[in-house]
């Protein structure tokens, strides 16, 4: 597959929330959202299988989000992969790789207007050495330590994985 091609798309309804500090399912204009708190690092977890047409490069995650109320300030996201390898990984416990932190992205001047933020994972450790055809989980976290953190929730509506 050529770089830049979409591998997976996740929506809020795909979330498999962790036991604590999980992003809350919400809605805006009848569109499902995942609500991320401004003060505590909340997580969303998506599960998938790396498509067979993946050619072994890095993976760039695009997060589509909007501020629930904020009209200024920044949001920063983190993402982490967990490889679920045949005969190795135990689904009874988490084994996410170290999270990769995205850039600090300014919210739109109108609340509800979406912003696309990207996080690039290089092939290898940042993908937890995930290989084609293997099951995986992806954890998305809002980083509340970002400078000029927006007030109120960040609402995630899509996550796209593409080959970098």
């Amino acid at each position, binding site marked *: 597959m050529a770089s830049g091609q979409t591998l997976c798309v996740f929506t809020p309804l795909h979330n498999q929330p962790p036991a604590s500090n999980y992003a809350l399912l919400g809605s*805006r204009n009848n569109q499902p959202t995942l*609500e991320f*708190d*401004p*003060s505590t690092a909340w997580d969303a977890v998506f599960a998938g299988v790396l498509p067979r047409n993946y050619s072994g490069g890095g993976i760039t995650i695009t997060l589509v989000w909007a501020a*629930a*109320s*904020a*009209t*200024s*300030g920044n949001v920063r996201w983190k993402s982490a992969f967990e490889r679920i390898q045949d005969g190795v990984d135990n689904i009874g416990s988490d084994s996410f790789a170290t999270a990769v932190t995205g850039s600090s992205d300014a919210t739109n001047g*109108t*609340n*509800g207007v979406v912003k696309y933020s990207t996080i690039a994972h290089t092939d290898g450790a940042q993908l937890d050495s995930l290989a084609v055809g293997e099951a995986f989980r992806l954890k998305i976290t809002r980083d*509340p330590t970002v400078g*000029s*953190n*927006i*007030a*109120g*929730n960040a609402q995630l509506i899509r996550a796209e994985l593409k080959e970098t």
Partner: protein
Amino acid sequence: MALLADETRKVINNSFQRELSNNFAPMSLTSDQLQAIVNAIDDYIDASSTAFFSQSIPVLTDKQKVRILQLVINERYKVL
């Protein structure tokens, strides 16, 4: 009466931000700026409390005075 603990002030800020989010109410201030406002209001109440409670309101307890204050503020600003 002492100032509220920092953790309590954060809870107030979080609660306020949750209300904003639930109502999709536009807010141009950042989370830290809202925290500074919460802190300033608590500072003001603390500095004013001695004068407020020493007003010559007979019989009433401090909690009753505060309850009346809540009702007066609500009537003036219609926010509660």
